[in-house]
């Protein structure tokens, strides 16, 4: 009969109305500034740069290879290489950025920079309260603002960070072993066998793993 469905609907809304005052579970709203939803591990908003150790300048993983700059779809990354090199985690001398700027008012948070970075340097942040009354300078982040310690990265993306750390530790061990072997070889009386160290152990860009973590 006409109207029976309407009455059922009315009963349903009335039940919601009364129930929302009785049981707190019915109210699904998170009252944002006071309560916050825990971010899922794979959440990503804006990129940041990881550094190891305590000094953001010395420990910065970035080698100013500019792959991220070239890959960035909205072209929001700006890098100038420094003339001075510095050693990376395996002791190899690498380039370092003099200027590393990200205009986060242009950044669209796609995460491609983090995907392509072969040095595990650029990672995705989870900070989302970025609004500001000022339009230009606030949103142009420099190297100093972008650099964040590895502990922070571990906190944000634990599994990704653990995987990265393990790989880097392995690299380091390998590099040390190699260095020791090289030192031993240098000490051994057969200099021409390996006059110069071979090509540096290439850090495999773990794109597939990153993609899995990121999504």
């Amino acid at each position, binding site marked *: *009969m*006409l*109207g029976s469905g*309407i009455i059922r*609907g*009315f009963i*349903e*809304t*009335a039940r*919601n*109305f009364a*129930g*929302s*005052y009785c049981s707190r579970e*019915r*109210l*699904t*709203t998170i*009252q944002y500034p006071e309560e916050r939803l825990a971010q899922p591990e794979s959440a990503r908003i804006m990129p940041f740069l990881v550094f190891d150790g305590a000094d953001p300048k010395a420990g910065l993983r970035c080698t100013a290879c500019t792959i991220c700059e070239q890959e960035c779809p909205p072209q929001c990354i700006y890098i100038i290489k420094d003339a001075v090199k510095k050693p990376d985690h395996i002791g190899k001398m690498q380039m370092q950025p003099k200027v590393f700027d990200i205009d986060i008012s242009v950044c669209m948070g796609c995460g491609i920079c983090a995907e392509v970075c072969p040095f595990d340097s650029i990672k995705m942040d989870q900070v989302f309260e970025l609004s500001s009354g000022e339009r230009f300078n606030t949103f142009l982040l420099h190297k100093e603002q972008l650099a964040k310690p590895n502990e922070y990265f571990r906190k944000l993306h634990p599994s990704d960070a653990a995987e990265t750390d393990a790989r880097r530790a392995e690299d380091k061990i390998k590099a040390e072993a190699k260095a020791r072997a090289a030192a031993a070889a240098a000490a051994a009386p057969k200099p021409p066998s390996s006059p110069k160290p071979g090509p540096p152990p290439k850090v495999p860009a773990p794109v597939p793993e990153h993609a899995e973590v990121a999504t």
Partner: protein
Amino acid sequence: MSPLVAVLYIVGIMAVFGSAFALTTIAERKTLGRMQNRFGPNRVGPFGILQPMADAVKMLTKEDIVPSSADKLLHFIAPLVLTTPVWLNFAVLPFGDHVVAARFDAGLLFFFAISAASELAVFMAGWSSQNKYSLLGAMRAIAQMISYEVPLVLSTVTVVMMAGSLSLTDIVDAQSSYAFGWLARWNLFTPWGLAGFGLFLIAATAESNRSPFDLPEGESEIIAGYLTEYSGFKYALFFLGEYLGLFAVTGLGVTLFLGGWHAPVKALAWAPSIFWFAAKFAALIFVFIWARATLPRLRLDQLLAFAWRFLVPLTLINIAAAAAWHYSAWWGFQGAMATRWVLCAAIIGFPYVWLGRSLRGGSPALRKYTYAE
């Protein structure tokens, strides 16, 4: 009536219903939220009760945009034409014992005549905006208002026939006695009154453009219809006018079917009459909000078919039921009351079922695709 009393009525009505407008906006949003398992606005002031103030500040400080191709004069006066006459509706409503601003002999006719002005205002708003969505919204609104004015008036005809007067005070007086010595003789407690009240509520919902009949302002289809090109103060005036129209028609419903300012049972008659009016008024407003939370918007053809193929015939049949009730009043045998109830309920009930079935158009047939096998 002395000028002082008249001014007192004017100021009183504007103050009470103006603040009722503010209260209803927040109450509506809170209630809708709760019915959808949300909190509703709860930020401005304790429990969000100062939200109307924030809304008012926002509305009044917004830029007033007039489209360059608009008909400037009509665009300007349309909200005034909508909002000004609505206040006149409250003049004939009896809010309490001897609390009525104007005792017109033809009060009900006055009420409906004044309501007619809002249709022109809506048309002016829609046409003067020079926007196709505005015009579509205005055409929908007019088609809807004209269609639903017929069942609205027809559903009140029964009350007028029973009270024998078009004056709203007389109609309230006709519901003043108590049956069995305790239960009020409201029109609601008769079969024709019950049916008439339901029909009246449906038609009133459509007449005041409220959900589920809010398709003149359907945001998702025609971007708020005739309100599209309005902003700031003028938009607020439209909003005010709409809510005042709802209040007026709610007050009319209270007066016609719920006994006006009379207490529901004799034992409670000691409470002030204005309190009873306000309580019934608030309850009816809650029903409107409840309906808004429950029912989805109709399509235009469903809307018009519902008015002409369901409501209008039923209101006419309801007049017949009222006649049956009236002319069987002399029956004195045992169980006469129950017989009358059954008789009138049958007169309304069978057409209700039948018309409701025709409205649905039988069971939906399986759709056949001619070209896509």
